[in-house]
C-alpha cells in the first residue's frame, strides 16, 4: 500500500525535478553556444536521476519484502502453531494474508485469523522501511544530478544514452522471452526423451499415451499419426482450398479488377484474416462437419464419423486464403509493369501474359506465401480441436477422424498435469517438433522473399 504511494511520490518528484532543473539551467543560459546542452535536457537528466534510482530501489524491495515479512511472522509466537506440512502452512498463510488485507474475509482456520494481525504489523513495518529506502535512493540520485546542472555538463549525451539503454532493454525482453520459451521446450522435451526414445517417438506409428504403463513405454508414443494428421489437414487439404482460391483472387485483384472493385474486395478478403479462429472452429464443427458426414454417407461410406480431416481442412483452407492471396498479390504487383507490357506488345492476351510471364516471375513470392500459410496452418489449434477429432489415425481417407500435433498438446496440458509423467511431457516434445518445423518453413520463406526482392531492385 505504502509502496504504491511512494512510487507515485517518486514520479511526482521526478516531474517537479524536471521543472526545477530546467529552470535552473535556463538561468545559466547566456545565448547560443553558452551551454553544452539545452535546458530541457538538464530537466530530463535530473528527472531520470530521481526516477531511475527510485524505481530500482522499489523493484528490489518488492522482490525482497515478502521474504522479510514471512520472516517476521514466523518469529511471531502465534506461528508456532502452524502445521509442519508445507502445503497446509502455505494455505493458512495465504488465508491470513487475505484477512490482513480485508478483515471481513471469512476465516476457515482460526489460526489464520490470529496470524492476520502480525501480518498487518509486519507489512506496515517493512513497507515503511522500504518506502523510506526508495525515497532516499531517489533523493540521493537527485542530489547527485543537481550538482551537474552546469553550463559545460553534457546532459544531452547522457539522456540520449539512457534512451538507447531503455530501448535496448525493451528489445532484449522480446528476445529473452523467445530464448526462455525455447529453453523450456528443450528442457521439458529432454525429460520426455529420457523415458521415450526419440527414434520411437519420431518413427513410431502407434499413439496411445493413456496406455503407457510399466517399463518400456516407447511403443505408446509413436507420433507419426499426429504428424500425418497435421500435414494431411494443414498442408494438403487446406492448401487444396487455399492455393487456388488465394492465387486466383490475387490474380483477379491485381490484373483485372478496376481500382474501385479492388478498393472493396481487398478489405473484404482481409476480414477473413480477422475472424477469430474459435469462430472458424465452430463453423467447422457445426456447419461443415455434418455436411461432410452426410456427403460421406451419400457416397456409400459405412457409418462415417462427424469429425473428419476434410471438414477441418476445408475450413482451415478458407482461413488461410488471405495469407496466400496477400503474398501473391504483393509479388504479382512487384513484377515490373514493363514485363507485362513486353508480353502484351507481342500480341499476347492478358491470360497468356499472366500464365507465362507474370506467374513465373512472381513464383518465388507465391511459394514463400504458401510456406508461411502452411506454417500457420499446422500450428492452428482451434479448428482441429473442434472438428478433426481425437483418434490418432494413420489414414489417407479424408472422411476419417484424425488428430494433430496441436490437438494432442491441448489434450496433454489441460486437466491433470504431472510434470514427471511422460504423458504430460510428450506435449513439450510435440511442441518442439512443431516449433522446429514452422521455424524452418519461415526461414525458407523469408529467404525466398528476400532473394526475390533483390532480383527486381
Amino acid at each position: 500500500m505504502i509502496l504504491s504511494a511512494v512510487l507515485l511520490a517518486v514520479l511526482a518528484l521526478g516531474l517537479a525535478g524536471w521543472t526545477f532543473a530546467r529552470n535552473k539551467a535556463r538561468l545559466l543560459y547566456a545565448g547560443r553556444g553558452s551551454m553544452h546542452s539545452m535546458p530541457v535536457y538538464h530537466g530530463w537528466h535530473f528527472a531520470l536521476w530521481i526516477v531511475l534510482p527510485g524505481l530500482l530501489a522499489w523493484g528490489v524491495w518488492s522482490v525482497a519484502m515478502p521474504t522479510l515479512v514471512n520472516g517476521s511472522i514466523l518469529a511471531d509466537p502465534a506461528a508456532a502453531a502452524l502445521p509442519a506440512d508445507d502445503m497446509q502452512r502455505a494455505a493458512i498463510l495465504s488465508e491470513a494474508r487475505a484477512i490482513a488485507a480485508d478483515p471481513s474475509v471469512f476465516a476457515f482456520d482460526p489460526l489464520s485469523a490470529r496470524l492476520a494481525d502480525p501480518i498487518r504489523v509486519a507489512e506496515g513495518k517493512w513497507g515503511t522501511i522500504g518506502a523510506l529506502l526508495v525515497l532516499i535512493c531517489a533523493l540521493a540520485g537527485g542530489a547527485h544530478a543537481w550538482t551537474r546542472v552546469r553550463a559545460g555538463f553534457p546532459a544531452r549525451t547522457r539522456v540520449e544514452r539512457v534512451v538507447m539503454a531503455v530501448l535496448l532493454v525493451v528489445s532484449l525482453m522480446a528476445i529473452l522471452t523467445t530464448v526462455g520459451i525455447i529453453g523450456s521446450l528443450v528442457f521439458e522435451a529432454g525429460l520426455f526423451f529420457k523415458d521415450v526414445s526419440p527414434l520411437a517417438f519420431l518413427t513410431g506409428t502407434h499413439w496411445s499415451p493413456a496406455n503407457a504403463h510399466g517399463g518400456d513405454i516407447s511403443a505408446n508414443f509413436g507420433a507419426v499419426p499426429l504428424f500425418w494428421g497435421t500435414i494431411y489437414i494443414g498442408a494438403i487439404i487446406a492448401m487444396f482450398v487455399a492455393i487456388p482460391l488465394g492465387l486466383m483472387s490475387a490474380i483477379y485483384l491485381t490484373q483485372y479488377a478496376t481500382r474501385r472493385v479492388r478498393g472493396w474486395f481487398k478489405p473484404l478478403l482481409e476480414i477473413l484474416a480477422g475472424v477469430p479462429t474459435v469462430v472458424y472452429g465452430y463453423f467447422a464443427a457445426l456447419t461443415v462437419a455434418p455436411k461432410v458426414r452426410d456427403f460421406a454417407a451419400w457416397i456409400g461410406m459405412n457409418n462415417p464419423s462427424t469429425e473428419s480431416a476434410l471438414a477441418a481442412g476445408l475450413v482451415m483452407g478458407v482461413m488461410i486464403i488471405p495469407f496466400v492471396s496477400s503474398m501473391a498479390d504483393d509479388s504479382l504487383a512487384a513484377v515490373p509493369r514493363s514485363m507485362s507490357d513486353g508480353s502484351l506488345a507481342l500480341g499476347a492476351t492478358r491470360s497468356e501474359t499472366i500464365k507465362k510471364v507474370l506467374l513465373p516471375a512472381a513464383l518465388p513470392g507465391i511459394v514463400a506465401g504458401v510456406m508461411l500459410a502452411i506454417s500457420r496452418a499446422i500450428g492452428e489449434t482451434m479448428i482441429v480441436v473442434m472438428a478433426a477429432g481425437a483418434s490418432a489415425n494413420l489414414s489417407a481417407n479424408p472422411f476419417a477422424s484424425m488428430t494433430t500435433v496441436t490437438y494432442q498438446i491441448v489434450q496433454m496440458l489441460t486437466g491433470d498435469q504431472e510434470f514427471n509423467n511422460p504423458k504430460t511431457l510428450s506435449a513439450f516434445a510435440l511442441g518442439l517438433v512443431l516449433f522446429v518445423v514452422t521455424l524452418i518453413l519461415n526461414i525458407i520463406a523469408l529467404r525466398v522473399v528476400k532473394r526475390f526482392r533483390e532480383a527486381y531492385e
Partner: protein
Amino acid sequence: MTDIKLQARNVDVYYGQKKAIDNVSIDIDNGLVTAFIGPSGCGKSTFLRSLNRMNDTIADARVTGEILLDGEDIYAASMDPVALRARVGMVFQKPNPFPKSIYENIAYGPRIHGLAQGKADMDVIVEKSLTQAGLWNEVKDRLNDPGTALSGGQQQRLCIARAVAVSPEVILMDEPCSALDPIATARIEELIDDLRQTYAIVIVTHSMQQAARVSQRTAFFHLGVMVEYGETSEIFTNPREARTKDYITGRYG
C-alpha cells in the same frame, strides 16, 4: 509512288480529363524510319503507344480520331487489339527481357501465335530473329542462359529480336537507347537502319543527333501538338516553324 503504312487522322488522346495529344494527323511510310522528337512530356510516347493500342492497358486513357493500318481503322470494334499488336510490335525504353532463357524469350511470341510447327521450325525462327537483331553470334552458344544475364545493349537487341520474331509489319521503338551506353547505342542504330528494309519503323527519341542519324522522316512534337513533320534533312537544316528551330538549336527542351 507513296507507300503509306500507318495513317493517323485528327487523333486526340486523353488521360482522364487531360488532353495529352491534340489533333495529330500523320502518314507513316513503309521502308522508312520515322522519328518523333520533342521535349519531355510533349506527348510523343503517348502518341506512339496509341499506334498499337498499348494505351488500352492504361485505365483512363482514351483515343479519338482515326488511325489506319493499311487503310483499316485499328480502333474499330472489329479490330482485335491482340492481333493488332502482333502486326505492330514495340520495343521499350528500358530493356525488358522476360525472366526466361534467351531461346524462350524469342520463342515466346511465335509460340503464342502458332508460327512454328515444331522444334526445328522454332529453332529456325529463333536463329533468324537473333541474326536480324545482330545478336546471334554473341549468344548462339548460350541460348539457355537467362535473358537477364546479358548486358544492357544485348538485352535491348534481344527485345528487338523478340519483336521481330512474330514477323510484325511495323516496329515502334520508345527511346530504345536511352538506357544504353554510346557503343551499344551505335549498334542499335545500325540495326535500325538494317531493319527498315523489312519493317516500317517509328522511333521516339530524346536525342536529336540520333533522329538525324537514323531517320528519314522526323515529326516534332510540342505540348501535345505535332508542330512540324517532314524529311529529316529538311527539319534539321531548314525548319519551317520557329518552335522547331528553337528546339533543334537547343533554345529549350
